[in-house]
């Protein structure tokens, strides 16, 4: 389908309002966007992968990013990884409120799995953005 045809198709079928709601819910609680649409297997697989990745990252001693810059570092450099971390929605917010995974602890940073943990936490958020888009597409009727 060429771009003009795609634009016409979009004009004919506007995005339903609940698709946006599903997108927000899917971001906030990983897997819930699919579960609300009764896509149980997708919810379990995709949401489960995000939850698992997040908790494995925490277990490995990974560190999440917020706007407070480490010593000798710029706040701007914290923004891209913070955007990735925020992808986990409520998991990030609850961890931030409880102060879990945000401590800048040299002992924790010395762990052999520290960088792995960081990567798992970043990837959990990025994978949840994909999960959110998938749930949104299904709700909008763009995907079977």
């Amino acid at each position, binding site marked *: 389908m060429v771009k003009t045809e795609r634009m016409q198709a979009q004009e004919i079928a506007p995005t339903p309002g609940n698709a946006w709601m599903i997108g927000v819910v899917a971001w906030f609680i990983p897997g819930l966007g699919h579960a609300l649409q009764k896509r149980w297997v*997708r919810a379990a*697989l*995709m949401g489960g*992968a*995000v939850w*698992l*990745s997040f908790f*494995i990252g925490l277990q490995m001693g990974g560190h999440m990013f917020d706007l407070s810059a480490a010593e000798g570092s710029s706040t701007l450099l914290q923004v891209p990884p913070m955007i990735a971390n925020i992808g986990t929605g409520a998991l990030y917010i609850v961890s931030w409120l409880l102060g879990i995974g945000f401590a800048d602890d040299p002992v924790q940073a010395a762990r052999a*799995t520290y960088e*792995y943990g960081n*990567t*798992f936490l970043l*990837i959990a958020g990025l*994978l949840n953005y*994909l*999960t959110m*888009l*998938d749930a949104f597409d299904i709700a909008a009727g763009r995907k*079977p």
Partner: protein
Amino acid sequence: MRHFLVMCLFAALASVILGAMTKEDDRERWLYGVKVFAEFIVIGLALGWLLYFIPW
């Protein structure tokens, strides 16, 4: 060995999502997921060997 297992776990989690959200039917999704998983492992190992010989 542990590093390899962590890489496999990472590849498995990423390929589950990439496999589940692409393609039209379940068989194609499975095949794509397995393909992505294999690519993660092979490219990871290849890069590991390549970087081993680079001193900096």
